[in-house]
């Protein structure tokens, strides 16, 4: 069984559209994350979220918003997509209150904005 799953795997859309990427984890973790990996393969934290707080990387545009219907899901909504949003987006989870708890990643969603 896949521990962290993301859908869709590929997403091609036009500038200005609004899109969502879904993420689910079945590990019972209390903290989930979204990362962006750009064309240079640099993996950058966007959000971390548990049932207590949302921590937002200050460089993330407010067009990006995480939505968590429950502890096992953290979806990423993106409004007014721009060319520069093209990247691979990774969801991850961990047991946030356990120091050193490793991150478990999904296999990514490749977003292409045309």
């Amino acid at each position, binding site marked *: 069984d896949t521990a*962290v799953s993301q859908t869709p795997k590929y997403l091609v859309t036009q500038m200005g559209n609004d899109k969502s990427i879904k993420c689910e984890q079945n590990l019972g973790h209390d*903290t989930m*994350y979204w*990362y962006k990996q750009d064309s*240079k*393969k*640099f*993996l*950058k*934290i966007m*959000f*971390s979220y*548990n049932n207590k*707080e949302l*921590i937002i990387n200050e460089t993330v545009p407010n067009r990006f918003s995480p939505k968590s219907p429950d502890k096992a899901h953290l979806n990423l909504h993106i409004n007014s997509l721009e060319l520069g949003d093209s990247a691979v987006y*990774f969801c*991850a989870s961990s047991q*946030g*209150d356990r*120091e*050193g708890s*490793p*991150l*478990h*990643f*999904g*296999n*990514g969603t490749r977003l292409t904005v045309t």
Partner: protein
Amino acid sequence: SQKIEQNSEALNIQEGKTATLTCNYTNYSPAYLQWYRQDPGRGPVFLLLIRENEKEKRKERLKVTFDTTLKQSLFHITASQPADSATYLCAPRTGGADGLTFGKGTHLIIQP
């Protein structure tokens, strides 16, 4: 500002040799450091964690060292195999639930 440096150029190693990857950090005092492996088209996978009070950690053919004076971690793969070819990422962590910051990674190629 905090900075993590890895040799982001490809590292070519002959099969059977030991591969050594370097992770240097500045303006950090990490409580621990994690290493991950990433294969093309996949998400990173956790390999090892080493804490600031540990000098060395081993797991099968993998060995990690942590020198808080030099602000450096070394990641070794002994008896390397072509299947070890991947990108390896380091992530020093100061604690908290705000996610890991990763280095850019080192692309390791093990040649048969």
